[in-house]
């Protein structure tokens, strides 16, 4: 059974409620949606945002489709009448403030830049929804999985670079980079001084001589300028000489226990190139 299926099934374990009913929740942000879907009981969830139901965006799309969807406006949330609203810290500034003005409890989550952040956000959501026990159990499983990855790292880290649509790459101190390290890779972009987000010039990319090219797939069948960059001839030439792997963007755009699945994909790519 794959790690993903295991986590999914564990998240569905029925928990017996004792005493008061658990707080109901609505979420208006893709990352907070997925955290809520992971931690909350199904009866608690009043609504998640429409992005959570999109398989390109969300790791839990199938699960999200069972719930009413919202487009993130205050009026919709009022109609769902949740006890708690979970949102992202950098989005919907006006909506969050209006909901607070209307007397709602709004919990803002900072983006997840590493595994510790995932744990933090799981705990925050768990506390807000009185499902701290579920949150802790997810954290324990994550740590076990991470420990397993660390233990199975044998050889020298392999030089790798991740290419996102538009020529962006992942820099130092991002969740993606920590996951790459867990898979036994070293992020060449970070070594070239790239912090957080940004693009690596095609030239620097070629000169850095990575052994593994990671494509983050996002709507690959749709034509866009961003996707065209991935077809750059220089990149294609490099791809002929090095191993490549594809990791769907949804694993890295938000931080969840499910994001660890991308480590498995990368490990398989590393071992298959030998």
């Amino acid at each position, binding site marked *: 059974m794959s790690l993903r299926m295991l986590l999914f099934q564990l998240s569905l374990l029925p928990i017996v409620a004792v005493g008061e009913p658990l707080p109901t929740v609505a979420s208006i942000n893709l990352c907070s949606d997925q955290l809520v879907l992971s931690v909350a009981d199904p009866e608690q969830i009043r609504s998640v945002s429409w992005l959570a139901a999109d398989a390109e965006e969300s790791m839990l799309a199938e699960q999200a489709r069972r719930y009413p969807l919202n487009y993130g*406006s205050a009026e919709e949330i009022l109609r769902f009448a949740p006890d708690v609203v979970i949102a992202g810290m950098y989005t919907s500034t006006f909506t969050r403030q209006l909901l607070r*003005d209307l007397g709602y409890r709004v919990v803002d989550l900072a983006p997840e830049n590493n595994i510790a952040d995932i744990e933090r956000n799981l705990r925050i959501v768990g506390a807000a929804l009185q499902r701290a026990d579920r949150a802790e159990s997810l954290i324990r499983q994550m740590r076990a999985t991470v420990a397993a990855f660390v233990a199975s790292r044998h050889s020298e880290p392999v030089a790798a670079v991740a290419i996102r649509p538009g020529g962006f790459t992942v820099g130092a101190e991002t969740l993606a980079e920590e996951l790459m390290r867990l898979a036994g890779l070293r992020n060449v972009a970070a070594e070239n001084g790239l912090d957080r987000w940004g693009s690596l010039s095609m030239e620097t990319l070629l000169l850095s001589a990575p052994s593994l090219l990671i494509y983050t797939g996002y709507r690959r069948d749709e034509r866009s300028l961003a996707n065209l960059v991935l077809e750059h001839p220089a990149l294609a030439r490099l791809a002929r000489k090095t191993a490549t792997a594809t990791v769907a963007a949804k694993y890295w755009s938000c931080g969840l226990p499910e994001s660890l699945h991308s480590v498995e994909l990368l490990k398989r790519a590393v071992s298959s190139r030998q």
Partner: protein
Amino acid sequence: MKSSAASFNWPLHAALVAALLFVIPLALLTGRSSAGPTFGFGGPDLAAAILFEIRLPRVLLGLLVGGTLGLCGAALQGLLRNPLAEPGLLGVSSGAAFGAVLVFYFGLAAAQSLLLPLGAVAGSLAALATLYALAGRRGDFLGIILAGIAINAFAAALTSLALNFAPSPYAALEILFWMLGSLADRSLAHVWLVLPLMIPGWAMIVLAARGLDALTLGEDTAQSLGFSPKTTQWLVIGGTALAVGAAVAVAGVVGFVGLVVPHLLRSAVGYHASRLLGPSFLAGAVLTLSADLAIRLMPSGPELKLGVVTALLGAPFFLRLVLRSRRGSLA
């Protein structure tokens, strides 16, 4: 509509007020859920919150922002004696947008969303100060237009720079969406925030009204009629900076209202710049409220941005204006 020096155009004002009284209740009644437009206020316990805290601020702001844009567009076209003039021309809107972007960039907006409008107002006032520094001493109209173009270019460049260094792609996206212009989920607090800036701005423009009439005949004649062109100019510019700055602060960049509205009404008021101000305010409000209503009436999906709708309506109109002026028949 016939007009002459002696008559106040009652039919025009009545028609505009009637249009306003038609749109406002519709706008108050219309909301939006994931399934598309909704009418009414939900259950009895929700009605007060939805009506007074969500829909009413949105309608009030639509009125204030739309009216401001129409009024300032009319004033600027009268001042510059050019039917292609617009509040965005002076760099006020882009200065305000940059001020707000700075607030986002330093992460201040996360804590308290009212800081965002305050940043925008500071930006519009900075743009005005720069305008004065660039064109103040000579103060001639061409100098002001050139200074406005320079400020627009500079503010746009600074905004791009800030976006380039945004703390996260989410912040950059949020800024971009805000700049597209929207009235969604604003609160009464925003109404109280803009009024102290808009009201003095409007007052300054109204004070300049007769000077604008006199300027129809050129600066020398206007001066001989007792109206200093410089005073008129700074009243209009200062009033526009305050009022439009506040509008951009709260609603983002909503374009073309200030261009289209005065243009449509000019002949109906006999080309008197002063008579254009009131109807432009009313018509700007009607146009903005209607566009905002149209957004909510769209079938299901995320809400369109208000600035996008006004641009879709206004840009073809602007193009038609440019073509007609090239052919020499702008009336």
